[in-house]
């Protein structure tokens, strides 16, 4: 018995000491960095506030990317290690979209909030700014019920992000100015034909496609794959001729509005809204956003995102004033008529949604053949989780681009599940949706959606509360969504068949 005791004790000690050493060694930054292949993970960490701290204290990889001791550290470490080894052996780092993985909804899976709070015990240090006061109060009130993570506001804490502003972004969009001649006059429209609108006082122009009115069947038949109940019953609808913007409103277009009107309310309060609610006939501009409205994906011809429904309507009112035309958001019927372009299937191009869908049992067997859908739609299958410039896709038969993908679009109708069933029998003429409601309709899927959700007939309600989930401002912004980076909009202009003119100028 005894002769086994000493060697056993020795082996035990070695094991304990050894595993301790392994734990230590595998928790060092150099060990993490020896495999971790994200470009610049280490250098961006060195430029972050967690490395270059005022006190000189350095925060290491595992202090954020693993939970604190006693809160599942070993299990999390084992899991992360296994995942990393598997990734190292089987994945091509070049093929991984690291930028997507840096977005909060992905990054939060690898940043432990319990670890944030293990160090940052006091969320209300005496040095906290006024903006920080409000934000941390919002966090302590709603972190649980609204699922808010520290990195929703402090995404750049561990790895530097160029241009990241965790707070009121007063400079946003101010330097965005499209090179070129400044337009003096808006476009003259004398006949029903596609025209290029020019916004006076700006360098911005865009194309409005003439879409001749007609009858079509709105909604989808019960047998359509991925159909939802709210897409029916199918109704025959008549829509008048109108102009529909070739592409979703771009950042260039929206920022022209922002730059010219934001003088009305260049603060983060809602003064502008009050003027409007009081019935004063002025177009008041958006207040500065909180954070990065473009998500760092770029401005230019990419579709504007993260603006609210009210901001979209304000933009259309402003555009009408600037051009003397009647610009507005499309109705749901106008939108679907435009998107179908005279076709009647799930898409305006050939193909079965089941063939294109990237999820489901079929995908275990074979990769989808997406050559056709890729030509027309920016969706989950090809978007790398962000918006695309409109030049990337081809137009539909009416010459409209990105009706089905890129960003979901506001239309002016209130949302109801049974909106189509509510219309009177027979052909419905220029329907405008339910008389009242709480959320608007979103049409056309986005870069986040799979093929089944970018069908022409797919529809969904806006989710205002969710879109403002992490906005800590009191009150929340009426101009910018903090959390909906997949919604934009498109404008239409009315056409007056009696005068043959597209304008309402006197």
């Amino acid at each position: 018995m005894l002769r086994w005791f000493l060697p056993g004790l020795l082996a035990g000690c070695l094991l304990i000491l050894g595993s301790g050493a392994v734990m230590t060694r595998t928790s060092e930054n150099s060990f993490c960095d020896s495999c971790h292949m994200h470009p610049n993970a280490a250098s961006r960490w060195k430029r972050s506030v967690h490395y270059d701290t005022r006190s000189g204290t350095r925060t290491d990889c595992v202090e954020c990317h693993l939970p604190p001791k006693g809160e599942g550290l070993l299990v999390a470490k084992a899991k992360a290690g296994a995942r990393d080894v598997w990734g190292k052996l089987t994945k091509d780092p070049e093929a991984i979209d690291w930028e997507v993985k840096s977005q909060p909804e992905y990054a939060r899976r690898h940043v432990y909030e319990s670890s944030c709070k293990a160090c940052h015990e006091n969320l209300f240090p005496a040095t906290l700014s006024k903006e920080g006061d409000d934000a941390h109060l919002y966090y302590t009130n709603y972190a649980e019920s609204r699922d808010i993570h520290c990195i929703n506001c402090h995404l750049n804490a561990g790895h530097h992000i160029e241009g990241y502003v965790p707070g009121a972004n007063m400079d946003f969009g101010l330097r965005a100015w499209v090179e070129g001649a400044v337009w003096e006059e808006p476009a003259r429209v004398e006949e029903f034909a596609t025209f290029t609108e020019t916004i006076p006082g700006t360098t911005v122009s865009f194309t409005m496609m003439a879409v001749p009115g007609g009858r079509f069947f709105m909604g989808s038949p019960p047998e359509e794959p991925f159909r939802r109940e709210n897409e029916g019953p199918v109704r025959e609808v008549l829509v008048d001729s109108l102009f529909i913007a070739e592409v979703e409103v771009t950042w260039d277009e929206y920022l022209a509005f922002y730059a010219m009107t934001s003088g009305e309310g260049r603060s983060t309060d809602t003064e502008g809204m009050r003027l409007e609610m009081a019935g004063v006939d002025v177009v008041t501009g958006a207040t500065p956003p909180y954070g990065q409205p473009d998500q760092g994906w770029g401005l230019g011809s990419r579709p504007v995102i993260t603006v609210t429904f009210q901001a979209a309507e304000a933009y259309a009112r402003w555009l009408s004033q600037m051009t003397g035309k009647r610009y507005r958001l499309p109705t749901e019927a106008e939108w679907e008529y435009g998107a179908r372009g005279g076709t009647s299937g799930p898409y305006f191009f050939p193909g079965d949604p089941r063939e294109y869908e990237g999820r489901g049992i079929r995908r275990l067997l074979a990769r989808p053949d997406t050559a056709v859908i890729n030509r027309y739609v920016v969706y989950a299958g090809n978007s790398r989780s962000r918006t695309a410039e409109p030049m990337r896709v081809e137009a539909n038969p009416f010459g409209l681009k990105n009706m089905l993908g890129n960003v979901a679009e506001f239309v002016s109708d209130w949302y109801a599940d049974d909106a189509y069933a509510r219309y009177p029998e027979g052909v419905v003429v220029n329907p405008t949706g339910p008389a009242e409601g709480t959320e608007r309709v979103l049409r056309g899927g986005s870069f986040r959606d799979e093929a089944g959700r970018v069908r022409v007939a797919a529809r969904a309600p806006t989710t205002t509360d969710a879109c403002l989930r992490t906005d800590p401002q009191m009150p929340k912004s009426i101009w910018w969504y903090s959390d909906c980076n997949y919604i934009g909009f498109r404008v239409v202009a009315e056409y007056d068949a009696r005068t043959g003119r597209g304008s309402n100028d006197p």
Partner: protein
Amino acid sequence: MSDEALSRRGFVGTAVAAGVAGAALPLFLTGCSAPRREVTIPVFLDQAPDGPLLTAGLVGCGGRGTGAALDFLNAGPNLKVTALGDVFPDRVNACRERLNRDKGQEIPEERSFVGFDAWEKVMDSGVDVVLLATPPYFRPEQFAAAVDARKHVFMEKPVCVDPTGARSVIVTARKAEGLGLSVVTGTQRRHQRDYVATYREVARGRIGELVSATCYWNQGKLWHRDPNPAWSEMEYMIRDWVNWCWLSGDHIVEQHIHNLDVIHWFMGAYPVSAVGFGSRHRRVTGDQFDNFSVDYVMEDGRHFHSMCRQIDGCADNISERVQGTKGWSNCQNLIADHAGKELWKYQYPLDEEGNPTHAVEVSPFLQEHIDLVTAIRTDKPLNEAEATAMSTLVAIMGRISAYTGREVTMEEVMGSDMRLGPRVFAFGPVDMPNEVPVAGQPYVART
């Protein structure tokens, strides 16, 4: 611990002997259905313990402030008031004389500050504690500055008049907590021994689970000042402050907060919504109502009702009442079952002839300062600011509902940017609307 050992004197004796004066006694409660809840029963001393000199500066030298300064000085040994500040010189002078006459405090001229910036000078004068007793409008900013300057604070209720102020006080309260500062807030029922003893009995389940509550502050007319041709509009408003919503928060906030706070304390929760009525029948000056009636709803669906009035010649009642599954209590000294049978009564001290008195041993106004000084000297911080800010916000929620006629939710007020009062402070005209609110919409004839 037995009931016997929990009796105040018995426990205080032990606490003092053990050198943990002022310690709070946690009481663990279990119920069949309710989750385990921990409540804290404060332990009261008759005097704060001795210690190094603590100096206080008073901001707001009216009746309430002067009273607070006297209570501070009476709280224990080695306490001094060394600076005064008020917007009006007559207030500073009267207070200075009173503190000199009653307590022999010599506050020199150069530490008696007058004007809208007097409070900043008081805070810069090297005091350890600031006593904030101006009209509540000014509280959030002064409290933030006091904590920023690492001062312990006594401040009168209410602690703000609008949601912006409430959020500011909540944040400052948390900063004070991080800094280990003590803050006592003038909701003196929480320092009144009969209330606390009753709370302990209710928390132990004497009346079962609480199902509803009612609270009242119905009294006659409060005071007002008539305009004086020598005063600017700003001076007039401040001198007449209990009649102006931007300064006082209206009487549901300014006065009734005491009773609302007791309900929150006993029920252990704040309401999530309110629907209120109110109107102005007989108020003489200002822009406030003189009566409110509000139905508050808790998250779990329990309701409680609040009533307050400042009109002469009506039924008066200043009290609270909580209803439980097994009985009820007036929150102050009595517990009875549903049949009206007395289950428990607070034992007031006896007078010289051996008859029970009707007052607690130590005035709750004095007790607040004893508790504050004890917390500072024993380094066991006491911080009531957030609880009082929440109670103030509940009162504000009721006020907004009565003013507008709408249901108002806690989520709404918590996220509201409402900020009352002028943007500029100087003696002169006050540029802001001050009509008395009218609820709802006017009738429009439909033809």
